[in-house]
């Protein structure tokens, strides 16, 4: 599903070159659940951004679901992104739309037939336990609920791959643990999950393959 071969990423800040990732190689199989772990600035977010082609690698090769991501022309980036769901720490919900509309919006922009939109949006909300909050606006949700809506929005298009970038960064431990359980549920239905977190203790409790990053390097791959 995901394969990185000697990937590096260097950001240029004026004349200064800042290496964010150096010589990273690993492979994640279809249906696997892997955790990217490491402190802030370790390169986890940069790695995820490379995977959904928000950035292009400075060196090496990245393959995601049969796409050579680095060489993918801009016009085909939407195609790659349709194959994945993405969850962020800052949820990125649309404040002027209800929970239901936030989820249905994804299906609408992807051209899903009208008759399928409502049942699929409610199925996604049910999967994260928020069917009752469909008509609420993001401002009326707790942080944990907002993150679950973001998760529902990511899975509503039934992606083969789910990328989660610090989804529990703003949550207390109990709610974070619930969200991890939801991720495991989604994974158990066949979705490949790649979770980036700096919360090592929580990651350990997940008991899944963990790739530990430090200073832009992959320092440990514990299965």
């Amino acid at each position, binding site marked *: 599903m995901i394969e990185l071969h000697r990937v590096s990423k260097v950001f240029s800040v004026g004349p200064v070159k800042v290496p964010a990732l150096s010589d990273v190689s690993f492979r994640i199989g279809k249906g696997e659940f892997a955790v990217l772990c490491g402190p802030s600035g370790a390169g986890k977010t940069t790695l995820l951004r490379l995977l*959904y082609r928000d950035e292009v690698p400075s060196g090496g090769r990245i393959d995601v679901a049969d796409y050579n991501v680095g060489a993918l022309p801009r*016009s085909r*980036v*939407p*195609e*790659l*992104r*349709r*194959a*994945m769901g*993405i969850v962020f720490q800052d949820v*990125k919900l*649309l*404040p002027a739309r209800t929970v239901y509309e936030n989820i249905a*919006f*994804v299906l*609408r*922009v*992807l*051209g899903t037939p009208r008759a399928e939109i409502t049942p699929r949006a409610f199925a996604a909300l049910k999967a994260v336990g928020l069917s009752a909050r469909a008509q609420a606006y993001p401002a009326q949700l707790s942080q944990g609920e907002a993150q679950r809506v973001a998760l529902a*929005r990511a899975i509503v*298009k039934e992606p083969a791959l789910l990328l989660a970038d610090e989804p529990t960064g703003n949550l207390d431990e109990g709610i974070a643990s619930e969200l991890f359980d939801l991720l495991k549920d989604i994974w158990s239905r066949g979705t490949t999950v790649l979770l980036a977190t700096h919360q090592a203790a929580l990651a350990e409790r997940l008991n899944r393959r963990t790739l530990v990053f430090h200073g832009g390097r992959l320092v440990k791959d514990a299965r």
Partner: protein
Amino acid sequence: MLGFLCGEALRDLVRAGWIALSSVLLIALSLLTLGGFWVFSTNLGGAVARWREQLRIIVYLKTEPSPAAAGALGQRIRAAGDVAQVRYVSKAEALQTLRRQLGAQAAVADTLPQNPLPASFEVTLAETASTPEATRALVERLAALPEVEEVQGGTEWMERLTQLQRLLGLVGLGVGGVLGLAAILTVTTATTLVLHARREELDIMRLVGAPEAVIRLPLLLQGIGQGLLGALLALLGLVGAYRLVRPRLEPLVTLTLGLPHTAFLSPTAVATLLVSGALLGGVGGWLAKGRA
């Protein structure tokens, strides 16, 4: 999907609020100006065409030819090109016409020792000579015939009118163009504001893999919507102004231009104005779209 795109475009239009309204009004104003000049130019063009139909060139001859020679000369004039009809007017017929024109004073003509009027040909122009250039060229060709003393049928006034008609068209295009440019910039500004308001939505759309067309089309559609709305307003304004002014102006137009009726824009011109509005708005939306 089209319903979704149009819905998003409408939502954007409402979101742009006053600035969208000012773009619509500017488009309406530019097309109203253009349309106003167009109506005026159309009527002037109608008058010029009518006068041109009635235009005759008189070819005066040095001496009166024999009937056979007159027939042969008539053939040569016809062969000069751009000629629809040729009619020979003998010296006697010219004098008779003069008597008719003098009316009560017709006896004056009888006091003349001899007929001073020259024989002539009345030449009616063909459709192909409807341009001032073609008319001038025909006059030159006829004047070059050895039997011809003088050719009258000055087209200068007609040329001046045609030039005035062209000038009016250009002024209309110029003023309409400047206003149109301002309208495009306003639509661009309105759309750019919408873009900023929609930044989060656009980010989400890109992250979930929405096709670029779905992201950008609503911006283009809302520009086209503003343009069409502006064009409709301009047309309403033109129709209203025409209906208001027509009863007062028509007698004057009949008197000065010789037109029995004034004319409004043709269906093609109306369609052109509508398409121009859509284009103005579309270009504005397209320019802003580049910043998406």
